[in-house]
């Protein structure tokens, strides 16, 4: 709780610094058998998790940011390899406490929601990101997206959410019937 929350621009600065370490991370992940493209995806995912963690009120960083990100990459890589059946369950969680693991599970789940969101129209995606991600007002969003007024944008927002829910539920039912 003693961590005063960082502003978005501070977070971005921190991310920029971390990005400079990309060659190290790349080397590390490659040594684990990860391809370059996969590695950068994992790295960005880890940075994303890190940046979201920074925003959560009860987060206290106990290690260097770089090590946190590196560990996250490692976790993500093991997780992916396990899914692809490349490695057996090993001591993946060595560096993560139980609560951390929950946190990651949740992030991974949200990632699948992101995938569902990416399947809806571009305008819908932008609208949802502007509203929930950047906290824009409906008036501004309507202006930006060329809608008549905020009522229209709002109605559109509900439709966009509904679309995502349909995708999630159909994905879900597909998975359960398989």
């Amino acid at each position, binding site marked *: 709780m003693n961590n005063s929350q960082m502003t978005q621009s501070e977070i*971005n600065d921190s*991310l*920029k610094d971390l*990005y*400079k370490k*990309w060659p190290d991370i790349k080397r590390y992940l490659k040594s684990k058998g990860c391809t370059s493209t996969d590695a*950068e995806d994992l790295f*960005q995912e880890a*940075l*994303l998790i890190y*940046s*979201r963690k920074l925003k959560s009120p009860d987060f206290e960083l106990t290690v260097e940011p770089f090590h946190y990100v590196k560990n996250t990459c490692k976790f993500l890589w093991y997780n992916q390899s396990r899914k692809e059946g490349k490695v057996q369950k090993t001591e993946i969680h060595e560096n993560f406490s139980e609560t951390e693991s929950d946190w990651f599970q949740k*992030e991974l*789940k*949200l*990632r699948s*929601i*992101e995938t*569902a*969101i*990416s399947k809806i*129209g571009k*305008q819908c*995606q932008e609208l*949802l*990101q*502007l*509203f*929930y*991600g*950047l906290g824009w007002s409906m008036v501004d969003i309507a202006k930006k*997206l*060329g*809608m*008549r007024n905020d*009522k*229209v944008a709002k*109605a*559109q*927002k*509900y*439709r966009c*959410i*509904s*679309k*995502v*829910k*349909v995708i*999630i*539920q159909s994905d879900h039912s597909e998975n359960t019937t398989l």
Partner: protein
Amino acid sequence: MNSNITKIIDQYLAGELSPEDTKVFEERMESNPELKQEVEIQRSVMEGAERASNRTDVQKIGKKYHFTKFIKWGAISLSAALILAVSSYYLFDLGSDSVEPIPQELIEQMDESAQIEELPTHYFQIPEEGAVVISEEGTLLSVPSDAFLLNGEVYNGISIVQLQEANDALDIITSGLSTTSGDNLLETQGMYGVQGFTVDGDPLEFNPEVGVYVQVPVDGYKADMQLYDGKKLADGSIDWQDPEPLEKLPVPVDMSKLDFYPVDYENYLDELKWSQGKIKRDSLYLSFEEYTFDSGEETMDELNFYFTGSGMIPERKITQEENEYLYEENPPIDFIMTPEEAYRLAMWMEGPNWEDFYGFWGDGTDYYDSTEAEDTTWVVDAAASCESDMAGPNHILPSKVLAFWNPKFNNTNLSTREFELRMRAIHNTCNNAVLEKYTNNLDKKISDIDREVVAMGYTEFEVFAEENVGALNPNNPHIKHLMNFYEQGIEQMKKVNYRAQNAEEERRSEMDEQLDTERTQELTRSIELENQAFNEECGLNLDNVYKQLGYTKGFTITGGSGNTGAPNAALKNIDKQVIDATIARNSVEIVDPKTGKTAELTYNEFNFTVANHEKYRKLFAYIFPHELNSYQRIDGTNGVFDYPLNNDILYDFAVVGLTEDGYEYFQKQTLRSGSFGTIDLEIISDVRLEASIQQLNKKRNANPVPIQSELNWLITEREYYEEEQQREEMDTFRYRVAATLFPCMEWNSEALRPGNDACGGTSGLAN
């Protein structure tokens, strides 16, 4: 998925529900696990959206990192000031064979004064009249005749141009070039050194009035790419100064080599192997100036509905969402949609959410009922106000394109590949105002216009704006004149189109009228003919029966009642039997009750079947009785004709079938009866058909009824049949072509499929 539930959940999650409602909602959730799950999913959607936004940030940071790291993009740096605007110049190849190689000592001498020591030099010899040359790396140099100065005077001799180029990061790094401007690090796209020399190796200066135009190969344009001057510092390194925005000059191309049609138009015509002639294609294109769906088929009506975004009142209640849009906080009690409300909603749908609404309306009949809607006057009103609401047609008018697409506009902004590309995008905007920006501003830089178009809201033109394309011949005194000419050209085109369309419409309506007249005449004629034939045959039969019964006097029959000169009941009875038999075409034996004598009327079997009857659009048999004045036309059923013949009459008969390609015919002469089984018709020309029938009609003993008007009718029907098919084909064709021309209209994809008849089934002619 119900938007209303989504909305309530959203309000709940955002804490916007009142405390009472929140309580009720939470109780519901407790008792309803499905609702609870849906709330969870929705919460995760919100978080997922937030996360997606975070991801965008991370990706941006990653991109930035790579940009600076690899110097992928950047400013173009040039070692000497090159003047950009070249008012006109000629392109031609400088064949390396035709030029004397530059002596080695001279090269070494010129190398001495190379701008960038680390880079290799390339030399081009430029003739007095100037030339355009391209380096192996793809850098284009355009050196006009007056590009250089020697001792302050324009240099007119052969020049040698030295080029040094570092096109990519590797070249730049290996040659140890700096990318600094003062204390700032530049991102660079490439660095170029250009110098001019006389054939003796004396350095030339750039002529500030003309200059050399350099075009460098880039993978893409970055908006803020600029041109820097390189200044050699004391330590030999280069500092880049005085940035200027880059400009690319459009390259003039002859109008005849450019293509300003919508992209799919020519592809479609080529697919059909339609005429390649530009005149033909232009006039086809022009004929779509005022294109509307007007073929009156059902599919077209549906399309009109989607096209105008209105046209019908949904027979349903207003949804909560719509209610909110219409009335905000104070909705009326009555939720049934009124025309006014439907109209406003239709307008709403034409807004940015149109796509969503399209699906919204398109998915069921419970939203609207077309039959109900047609009863209201609103349909018309809405269509009218829709039209007046629209700023103009929602496609680029062919006249506006064709008016500039001619040699008169050569050497203007419009006769360039650059504009050709833009024209494709302009078609997709469907907004004539966008086109006008370009056509009305021939003296402006193309990319300045691009920026104006972006400002109109067409963000897809940003790519063009970033290319920073200049103007071609902006100072040409003819430009003003051309702009006037363009306006006149459009009017001219409109007139041409109007005349063509008018002529076609007149032709069609003339054709329709002729057919109408022929058909009316045919109807009266058939009735008269039938009456006459019956009366004649009846008279003949009565004559015959009376003869057999021993009455010798002739009779006339009027109106089927006996007026026989033998005014008694028995004869009337005989009359009736004869009339009945004639109507039924049955053989009978008639007994005279007075004398007990008998008389016979005999009808013989006569029938045939026409092979492949289904191929005939119309199929008739004509019967020519030798003893009567009238001929008879009999209709078969499914190609089967059965018409007993009177044994006292000698007949000829002919069968006429109308097909897609013309007539088919069969004839047989001098018979009283016969079962002919299946007969095959043979193709016959219209002239021969007419002659044959005329002959059959005339050769009879009696005083034949003229058959010419019947033949005229047949000919008209046939012509119209062809016409109708052509119209149908034309409508289908035009519909498909229009779909290639007007991207903003909603098209019925079924109807567009090749081989699918867009205009519905065959609509037969009314008989």
